[in-house]
Every structure is written in C-alpha cells, then in structure tokens.
C-alpha cells in the first residue's frame, strides 16, 4: 500500500506535470474528499440516483403516467407495477423517476440562478464597499425579512400561466440573498490583500480585478455554496409541492409524491405510495449535505483533518 502510493507519486513527477495548484485549490478539496470513505460513498450514491432519474425517465412510458382508474391502488411488487400505483392508477416507480428528475432539475436551476446573481452582487458589494455596499445590503436585509414561503404561495395562485419555469424564478427571487451575503464577506477579506492594489497599479479595471483576480480566490467558497445550495433548494421545492403550491398537479415531483401522505389512510395502510419518495429525498439531501461539509472542511484550514 505504502509502496504503491510512493510509486504513484513518482510516476506523476516523472510525467513532468508542470501544472500545480496553490494549496487552497481544487486539488486539496479532492484530496480531502478522497480521504473520506463516506464522502466517496455519498458521491457514488448521488451518481446512481442521477443516472436512475435522468436515464430512467427516458424509459418511462407515457401510459404509466396516465390516469387509469382500473389499476388504482395496486400494492407494491404487483405485476407490471414494481412499486404499486396511486389512486389514479399511475405507476409509482415512473412517478418517482420523473418526479425525482424534476425536483433535481429545479434544485440545480434555482441554485445556478441564485449563485450567479449572488456572486455578481456579492462581488460588487464587497469590492466597492461604502455606499454601494450599504445600498445592496439594505435591499438584501429587506428581502430576507420577508416571509418567503407565504409570498411564493400567494404569487403561485396569482400568476396565470404557472409552470416549472416560473417556480424556478420565484424561488430564485428569494434565495440569491444569502449567497450574495456569503460571497460578500469573502470578497471583503480579499479586497484588503495587496494583490488587488498591485492589480490596480498595473492598470486593470475594477471589473477585471473583480472577475479575474478576486473571483478565483473565492472559488472554493463557490463550490461549497453550490453543493449546499442544491440540497436546500430541492428541499424548498419539495416543501412547496407538498403543500400544493409548488409544481402544477400535472407535473410530478418528489413533493407531490410525499403529498400523498396528507391522507391519513395513505399514511397508515398504503406506505408504498409515499415512502419511496421520502426515502429518496432523505438520501439526496443527506448525501449532498455531507459532500458539502467535506468541501467546507477542505476549504477551511482550521477544520481540516
């Protein structure tokens, strides 16, 4: 084992790899990740879930998602329906695959939008400081004190042609604020470093300094926020759908599946209808969160093992 390791390193240097990253870089995060057995397991499980939902949805037939009263409420492991059917006769396995995919896509889209928005505003706010910072921070404070669930619920009922895309925008409207705050704090710390001043003295514009100098130095924070953000946003979507204000009823998601548990009869005697979605949501959130904390640990030297 030891010999093997040394050998590996030798091969690497012999190959003459001229590229080496600073110690706070991506390589260190990867090293930290590989050291943690459970993190590797988490990533494997997540990859399997992604394959299961995204590839699986290609094989889901249209009929299995159609209402078919005659096949209603078949229990799990019955012929043709591995996880049984719901009251309308829809195949639970198909719903789980398509719903899981929808939830994950929404989680990722919301995260992408809110991270990009948060990053730009956090960079501007932290880099310029002063009045600019004050204005942005007051706006963020204002948005953060709003009860976001309430407002999203009200807006979903007001908006006429309401679909997955509008839901993504609605959730993003509120979730960029915490990212902006998070990034701002790191930019504030970076701004005081002399390389920013050196860059200014070299004639670089503020925009160039923000995106070419400061941004690479907070890259590990971005990875952390992306990973943890995805888990959180899947949770928000699921919560809204569970309450009936998320995706429209025609579009399945983990939330609508868990929503079947609203019915006391379902919760007592038909666990196959809602339990698979609950288990899937738990696994996804827990695994993503675990990977996120490993990243966080790797980025912070004090927490490193």
């Amino acid at each position, binding site marked *: 084992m030891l010999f093997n390791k040394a050998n590996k390193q030798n091969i690497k240097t012999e190959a003459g790899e*001229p*590229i*080496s*990253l*600073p*110690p*706070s*870089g991506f390589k260190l995060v990867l090293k930290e990740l590989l050291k943690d057995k459970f993190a590797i397991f988490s990533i494997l499980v997540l990859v399997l879930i992604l394959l299961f939902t995204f590839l699986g949805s290609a094989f889901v037939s249209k009929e299995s998602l159609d209402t078919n009263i005659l096949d209603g409420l078949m229990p799990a492991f019955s012929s043709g329906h591995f996880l049984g059917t719901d009251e309308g006769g829809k195949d639970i396995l198909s719903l789980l695959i398509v719903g899981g995919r929808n939830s994950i896509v929404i989680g990722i889209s919301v995260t992408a939008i809110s991270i990009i928005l948060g990053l730009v505003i956090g960079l501007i706010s932290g880099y310029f400081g002063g009045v600019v910072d004050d204005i942005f921070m007051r706006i963020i404070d204002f948005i953060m004190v709003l009860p976001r669930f309430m407002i999203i619920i009200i807006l979903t009922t007001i908006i006429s042609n309401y679909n997955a895309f509008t839901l993504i925008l609605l959730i993003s409207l509120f979730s960029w604020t915490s990212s902006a705050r998070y990034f701002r704090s790191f930019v504030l710390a970076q701004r005081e*470093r*002399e*390389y920013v*001043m*050196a*860059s*200014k*003295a*070299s*004639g*670089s514009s503020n925009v160039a300094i923000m995106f070419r*100098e400061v941004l*690479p*130095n907070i*890259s590990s924070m971005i990875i952390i926020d992306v990973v943890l953000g995805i888990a959180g946003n899947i949770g928000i979507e699921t919560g809204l759908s569970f309450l009936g204000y998320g995706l429209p009823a025609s579009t399945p998601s983990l939330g609508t599946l868990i929503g079947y548990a609203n019915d006391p009869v379902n919760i007592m005697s038909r666990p196959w209808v809602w339990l698979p979605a609950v288990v899937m949501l738990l696994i996804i959130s827990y695994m993503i969160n675990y990977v996120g904390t490993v990243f966080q640990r790797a980025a912070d030297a004090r927490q490193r093992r």
Partner: protein
Amino acid sequence: MSLIQIKDLKIHYPIRSGFFNRVTDHVRAVDGINFEIEEGETYGLIGESGSGKSTTGKAIVGLEDATSGQIIYKGHDITKASERRKLKYNRDVQMIFQDSMSSLNPKKRIFDIIAEPIRNFESLSKEEEKKRVQELLDIVGMPSDALYKYPHEFSGGQRQRIGVARAVATKPKLIIADEPVSALDLSVQAQVLNFMKKIQKEYNISYLFISHDLGVVRHMCENLAIMHRGRLVEVGTREDIYHNPQHIYTKRLLAAIPKIDPKNREEHKAHRQAVEKEFLENQDKWYKNGRVYPLQQIGKSHFVALPQDKLEGGR
C-alpha cells in the same frame, strides 16, 4: 526639471463618531509635504510605522486619494483619476510592495502576473509578450521555468524579485518601492537591492525608496527625507542627514542603528539614552503642540523643521 513634484500633499481620513455618525475629526496621515524626485535618482523616504510614508507612496501611484495638494507629473496634476487614465500614468509609475506573498495573486501563474501590466498598457502579440516576460525574469535572475509556477512555490526573496519584474514590465520612469526588503532576511535583502540597482542603471528608473531601515537607505539613496507624524522633519543629501543631523527625530533614528564597536559600547549606550531623553522631555522645543514645524533651509540642500529662534540662537 524634475520628474515628479509633490506639492503640499495632504491625505486626511475622517473620524466618525456620535449618534449621527458625523465626521468629528481627521487623522492627518499625510499633512502637507513637498518634495521632488529627479530622473534616475533614488529618493529615500524614511520614518517610523504610522508616519505616513506608505500612504504618501500609495498616493503617488494613485492608490490613495489626496485630500488636497498636487502631484505634478509631466505638467499634469495626477491626483485626479481621469488625468491618470489620460496619461496612461501607471505605465510610467509602478510600485513594489512590502509583502511579496500577498501582493502576488496566489491563483495566478507568474507569467500572467508579470504580463498583467503589459496587457493593460501595451498591445503585444502572444509571442512578443512571452518573450518580454522571459526577458524580465532573466533580468531579475529567475530561471525560465518559473513562468508556469504559482507564487507559493517560491521563497520570499524570489517572490520579491518577481514583484520587481512586474514593476519594471512596462519600462516605467518611477517605481515606488514600499519597504521592498524589510520582510526579507539580510543576505536576500542585498540580492534584491542589487537587482534593483542594476535595473535602475539599465532603464534609468527613479525610485522612491520607502523604508525605516537607515542602513539600507544609506546603501541606496542620494537624497533623503525623514518623515514623522505626517510631515517632513528633515530633508537633505545623504551627507547632510548622516553627518549633520539637526532634528531630534533624525538623531533618534540614527542613534537606533546598531554599531559594531564593542569597545565603546557604554559610550554609544549613553548617547542613545541622552537622545531618547531629549526627545521625550523636550517635546515642546521640537514640536508645536505635537505638530512638526515648517521646514527651514539651513544649507545648500539641507532643510530641517525647526522654529526660527531655535535655528539662529540655539546652535
């Protein structure tokens, strides 16, 4: 005609306090200083921590806004950012920073770090650019494989040489060297200073050499200015300052240089203590309410901040 003139430069920072966060007072980091730097010379700016010497340097590069006063370069007042842009000022005036680690972006390769000012001020093709960076690394005695490495892979002295290479990349006329060697150990200090001197000869660069180390300054500078509490206390040539110091603060700085003369150790100690005692007890004589007096000419090139009566009668 000198290269750059600093005229009555003031940099004040507001102190805010009270319920409405109003400006109640100012920190006078730089409080009315005048000096000129000639082409090709090394001008020394010396003072203790917090005396405003780095702030002065940053104002000259354009990193710090002046409260009032002028910095005249090529007949233009460059305290305004618009003037600096018009003149492509930073192409001619560059800076070497004290902390080589934090002044080099840890996520960028040496090639990109040194090429940054070139890309901003000159339009060179990729190959010319690479050749230029290669040359610059040669000048500061770095191996060419340094191009694709990251700053943390170098020692302190090597990093500071990279900082020097970046500063000379656009062939500037003036380089502000803000304590360029005070973070380095002695043998490496000499090495970096010699590279700086070599570059000065090659490109006819002026330096504003900011330091608290009088030994290093003696090695580098022809003309010196001693700064204290945001003002100049004594200005003169190397001879004037080292052999005929007039102001108590200058004397105090000079007394603080360790002397390699064990036989007269007691004498040096007594002298040092006498200077320190004079400085602490007779503040009123040398300072007006803690503020440095205006400069008076006492020799051909020698100025000192003393009151009129002290100049004529006291000596």
